[in-house]
């Protein structure tokens, strides 16, 4: 199988263990999800040669439901990015326009599904990493409620924010995959026993949808905003009640998100020291020199930047000013959502402020971080969020984002299904 988009880091063929709801489907798995016997690199050179001895829980679930795992997909190193350009294995190109990025960090999963190289894919979403490539590649992608899908076997970037979730060409398939993935796992203490129970109906009459004005500010391309507004009108025509609202804490969201994820990452990535697995280096000089050498050679520049900033944010004398303050801001975001969800059932807005970037366009890290503004709030609050295609700008897809209450992934998916059905009929 050729891979002109560079969607895969490792091709594999893990056959199903038995027949089930996913029989006959080829599934691509993001390369930060552990697969026994198949290299799992997280898009990083530091994990060169590492082959997990165990399967992530979600991989066990897929294979037990008849799925065939066909490859491990490319990603920004450890999930740090929204373009897949931060991969140690080169960028993944956008299937619609190869001069553009596929989004990230689950860019390989997004491109593989959009290009038909896989029927479905798993991604992980720490601050938008499923929804961003879904939006940029014109497919559906869902970040489940925090605690709905086991993280056992997902190589941690920022534990308190991330979830594994599905990418697919249709919302129906997203629902099918969620039925398989949402299973209690005693090996993940943050995983709850909340099976996903929905056969999508597309019935959204009377559902109240909030539209926070902030989701249309913050550098959102007006053309993207216009496409999304039209999609929201569509939902209104289907019987939903649309309510304008506000989310004041949005101005803290990015800072809270980046401080938290970098802090957690600085600790999570400490284990990559070359002692037990990964990049081999000469340990003779002294152990700290060996550790330094492994990390210097193995990590890419964005990873180093985030580890250093996270280390700083957690250090004595700065903890209160950064990490602790970020948690306060995070609580404000949670409270804002809780407030809004007393009045509305769903919140809608664009997934990304723009269409897919051109390759190299986001070489300045700050401008790349700013592009996450609309996706990080759902991670900070732990609520479910889906991105579905809702139109085009310059021939590139635009994503509509729908967010819901904790553990109401079913309503989010059903509303997305309603929109998808209506749009399908229209086209």
């Amino acid at each position, binding site marked *: 199988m050729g891979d002109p988009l560079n969607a895969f880091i490792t091709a594999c063929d893990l056959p199903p263990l038995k027949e089930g709801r996913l029989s006959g489907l080829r599934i691509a798995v993001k390369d*930060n*999800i*552990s697969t026994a016997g198949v290299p*799992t690199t*997280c898009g990083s050179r530091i*994990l060169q040669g*590492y082959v*997990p*001895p*165990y399967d*992530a829980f979600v991989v066990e679930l897929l294979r037990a439901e008849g799925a065939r795992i066909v490859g491990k997909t490319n990603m920004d190193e450890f999930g740090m990015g929204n373009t897949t350009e931060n991969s140690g294995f080169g960028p993944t190109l956008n299937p619609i326009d190869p001069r553009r990025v596929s989004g990230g960090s689950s860019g390989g999963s997004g491109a593989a599904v959009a290009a038909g190289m896989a029927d479905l894919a798993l991604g992980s979403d720490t601050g938008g990493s499923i929804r961003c490539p879904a939006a940029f590649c014109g497919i559906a992608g869902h970040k489940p409620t925090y605690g709905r899908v086991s*993280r*056992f*076997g*997902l*190589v*941690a970037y*920022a*534990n*308190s924010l991330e979830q594994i979730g599905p990418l697919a060409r249709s919302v129906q398939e997203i629902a099918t995959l969620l039925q398989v993935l949402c299973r209690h796992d*005693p*090996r*993940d*203490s*943050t995983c709850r026993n909340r099976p996903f129970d929905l056969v999508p109906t597309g019935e959204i009459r009377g559902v109240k949808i909030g539209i926070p004005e902030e989701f249309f500010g913050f550098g959102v391309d007006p053309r993207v905003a216009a496409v999304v507004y039209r999609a929201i009108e569509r939902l209104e025509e289907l019987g939903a009640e649309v309510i304008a609202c506000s989310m004041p804490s949005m101005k803290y969201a990015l800072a809270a998100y980046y401080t938290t994820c970098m*802090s*957690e990452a*600085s*600790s999570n*990535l*400490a*284990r*990559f*020291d070359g*002692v*037990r*697995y990964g990049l081999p280096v000469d*340990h003779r000089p002294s*152990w*700290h020199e060996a*550790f330094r050498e492994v990390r210097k050679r193995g990590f890419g520049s964005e990873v180093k930047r985030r580890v250093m900033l996270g*280390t700083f944010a*957690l*250090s*004595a004398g700065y*903890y209160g000013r950064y*990490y602790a303050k970020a948690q306060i801001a995070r609580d404000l975001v949670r409270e804002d959502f809780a407030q809004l969800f007393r009045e509305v059932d769903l919140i809608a807005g664009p997934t990304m402020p723009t269409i897919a970037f051109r390759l190299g366009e986001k070489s300045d890290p700050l401008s790349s971080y700013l592009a996450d503004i609309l996706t990080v709030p759902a991670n900070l609050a732990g609520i479910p969020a889906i991105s579905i295609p809702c139109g085009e700008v310059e021939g590139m897809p635009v994503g509509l984002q729908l967010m819901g209450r904790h553990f109401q992934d079913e309503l989010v998916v059903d509303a997305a299904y309603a929109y998808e059905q209506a749009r399908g009929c229209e086209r």
Partner: protein
Amino acid sequence: MRTVTEERGVIIGLEVHTQLSTASKLFCGCSTDYREDEPNTHVCPVCLGLPGSLPVINRRAVEYALKVAKALNCRVAEECEFARKNYFYPDLPKGFQITMYDRPIGTQGYVDIEGEDGEKRIGITRIHLEEDPGRLVHAGEGDRPKYTLVDYNRSGIPLLEIVTDPDLRSPKEARRFLNALRTTLEYLGVFEGDREGALRVDANISIEGQNRVEIKNISSYKGVEKALTFEITRQRGMMRRGLGIERETRHFMEARGITTSSRSKEVEHDYRYFPEPDLRPLRVRSWLDRIQLPEMPAARRERFMVQYGVSLTHARTLTGELRLAEFYEKVAHVDALLAATWVADTLLGELNYRDQSITALPPERFEALLRMLKSGAITDRGAVEILRRMLDAAARHEPIETPERIMKSLDLGRDNATDLMAMAAEVVSSNASAVSDYRSGKREALNFLVGQMMKRTRGKADPRELRRVLESILTSG
């Protein structure tokens, strides 16, 4: 003259790491009993810190920690929470240790000990749970080993850290505190003192407002007393020469009984603690209320005095170690007071002399020995001899013969009364001058005659009985 250890102005605080005796590790299902096994055979993705693995709290370990918190009279908050302590070291598989930081299991507890002047209360600052790292094994000798290997069998072993207030005033008090703590932990059934690495102590010591010195790496009870005594002598010596005490960390060299500076200027480590995101806070307050403590040492001591009528001293000794108390209760039915004396004085003395544990001797062997003593079948001296034979066999890992058998094989049985009468008559007739001395009022002469009898019985006879037999002949004849 005051000894150095009793001088005033000494302030000591301890950080005690004890290994909880759970069957599995703190955050995974791996067995904790790796003693006889090859390195890296009790490991899994979790305790190896493989990418993607997640910790799951061992319920039993938390329950044990709460038992200790209750027994040490600690305050327990509504919730406690694990935190990450971040640092790099080759034995630390995740690059951080999961421990507790600002929300520990318990705070502000106390332990009562026998202090330098009577009963004394030692404050417990905090107790918390944490995981042990792996173990480094250096190949070759000296400062520059050829290479170092890591054994992760220890990685994830549950430790309970117990930190005292700076309330201890002498090495002896420190030792007594540790003994009291050990007894408490053993009574709770959460600790096996014999396991390798079961107890490790860091001691903080300062004298008369001088800088505080931390002594790390002390791994025995005796070691704590030795290290502190050495350190007081060293610091006093420095002060006498007008030198200041540097704030530093020192290591205790157990074999040489000295502390040495770890040389590297103690950099203030920044461990960047933050809440462990992979674990939820634990609601422990309500759990604590459901925890029942077993009978603790003080209660057992009282009961021994009431139930068995033993003295305070014996009760204290017998309850000072759980297994000793249990041993005593297994043999007390023969004769509670006889058993108390023989367990607390004789047996314990023999064990200490040989550095043996009470587990060396099966209680049924000792029970048989007590029966023989009670019935008069053997003398005290004979019983001690038999006891020694049994402990020697245990030390050689040989089967321990019954006391009856040992008695017969050594011919230690008390001679019967008619034999004694005959022997006494013989002694009387062949020591005429002593007999006439006795009859003329010199009572000491009887001792000489008893001695003669002892010689003939080769010590097997009870001197009191010999005296009785002799007296009966002398008065009748």
